């Protein structure tokens, strides 16, 4: 029985190895490095530095932008997901929603350099409308817009799945019992698809905290997020200590968010 059980469990090894090497070890290493300064001496200075207003302000604005991006993505994605479930050939349409995510994110961000540029399409339109050329690139607006654009498919997908799982007879029953379309939506459809909404918000909010390439390319370094700061410290100033400290903070924030939105659904499976 012993050897039998051992061979039976052999297939566990790669997965457990993955868990130890790529889940546990990185977290431990990040925490460990946050206690060392740029010269490799043990210090608590990184944490002292993190609690100064400069970093706090950055953290707050980072969260604020992530919140805005999540909110706008949800506002655009929910109706889109709902309408998608009503189309014929909905699997094909869903595939077409996912298709742009197969084009690398950087290419799409790069396109916006042209669209939002001083002589770009949007500015030509504004000119035609008599509003005149505006500075769009390198503003908060361009940052939020491009980020929302990037995340919409990731918001639509879980909501679409939740809507698909929704038993249509519940909606019919609600309508039969005389509920208005709005009541049916707010009391039946939305609560029952809340799992999808939460999954979508998680899929958007956390990556939105770490969008350093968009801030660099279309926000012109005006928007500095925690992600930008980590990238800066790890790859430019080579001060891994403070970078790791910010990363520790992000990991903690992420744990809190997961607690709040709750990854658990009844049945135990995410």
């Amino acid at each position, binding site marked *: 029985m012993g050897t039998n059980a051992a061979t039976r469990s052999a*297939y*566990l090894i790669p*997965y457990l190895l*993955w868990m130890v090497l*790529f*889940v*546990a070890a*990185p*977290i431990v*290493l*990040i925490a460990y*490095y946050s206690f060392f300064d740029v010269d490799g001496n043990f210090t608590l200075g990184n944490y002292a530095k993190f609690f100064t207003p400069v970093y706090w302000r950055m953290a707050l604005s980072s969260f604020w932008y992530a919140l805005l991006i999540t909110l706008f993505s949800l506002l*655009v994605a929910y109706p*889109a997901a709902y*309408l*998608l479930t009503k*189309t014929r050939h909905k699997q094909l349409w869903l*595939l*077409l*929603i*996912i298709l*742009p995510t*197969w084009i*690398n*994110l*950087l*290419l*799409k961000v*790069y*396109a*916006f*350099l*042209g*669209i939002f*540029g001083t*002589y*770009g399409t949007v500015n030509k339109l504004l000119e035609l409308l008599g509003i005149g050329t505006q500075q769009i690139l390198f503003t908060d607006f361009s940052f939020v817009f491009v980020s929302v*654009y990037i995340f919409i*498919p990731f918001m639509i997908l879980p909501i679409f799945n939740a809507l698909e799982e929704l038993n249509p007879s519940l909606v019919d029953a609600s309508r039969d019992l005389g509920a208005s379309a709005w009541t049916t939506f707010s009391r039946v459809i939305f609560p029952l698809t809340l799992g999808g909404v939460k999954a979508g918000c*998680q899929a958007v909010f*956390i990556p939105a905290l*770490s969008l*350093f*390439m968009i801030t660099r*390319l279309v926000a012109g370094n005006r928007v500095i997020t*925690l992600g930008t700061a*980590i*990238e800066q410290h*790890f*790859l430019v100033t080579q001060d891994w200590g403070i970078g*790791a400290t910010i990363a520790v903070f*992000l*990991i903690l924030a*992420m744990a809190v968010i*997961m607690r709040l939105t709750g*990854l658990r659904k009844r*049945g*135990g*499976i*995410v």
Partner: protein
Amino acid sequence: MKTRWKVSNLYLIAVFVILYAPILYLAYYSFNSGGSMHEFEGFTLEHYAEVFQDTRLLIIVLNTLVIALLSSALATIIGVAGALFIHRVRRHTTKQTLLTLNNVLIVSPDVVIGASFLILFTIAGIKLGFTSVLLSHIAFSVPIVVLMVLPKLQEMSPTLVDAAEDLGATRWDVLTKVVLPFIRPGIFAGFFMALTYSLDDFAVTFFVTGNGYATLAVEIYSRARQGVSLSINALSTLIFLFTLLLVLGYYAVNRRGAAKAKTLAEGVRP
């Protein structure tokens, strides 16, 4: 009723237009003989010729594809093993812990993953380049595969396995002839999601590529920071057409498969 149908379709169309606008925008200007993305001077194919003459770029495209396919395949194998393992765990709290650990890399911000992997590879003495990028892509794809496969395992009735065992099937037979075929849709979904994540990743890769090795995203980032280059437009157009063909092909095959299954089923029924 009719007008509402129209309004809702308009909304969906608007979402599709916005999703595809940047991609079509890139494609449009890829034929521009002028050097910019705002003044269309004349039709030319020179940027496409440029792409095909740029061996460095072609090697990078190849790198990207190799990394994506290889990492998704390996992640699928590890992920399926992981899902089978988690599915087998009976104790609720253990299962919950495993699932939480599994999801760490999904919910972590990309920059944190990138930074922690950079520390890990540096300490382990792994040279930054192909190996580090491949390992990272496998690492962040594994949990997605697990999440795609687990629901299928849950759907599977345990009596199916019992029946197979009663009929004298070995564990290996049960796995390869009953379980794996049953969860095949989940495995494919996991593989394709892993592929998507790998092709789309920039942030993690950016941290773990050394000098001299690049994936497309990293290369585009460095080129886009230097300004507009229409060969990037040409390349992205080619990638887009290629992906579109793949998706449409996949859809057609799927539908034909479904239709075949349907006619077969109808033929069997009296």
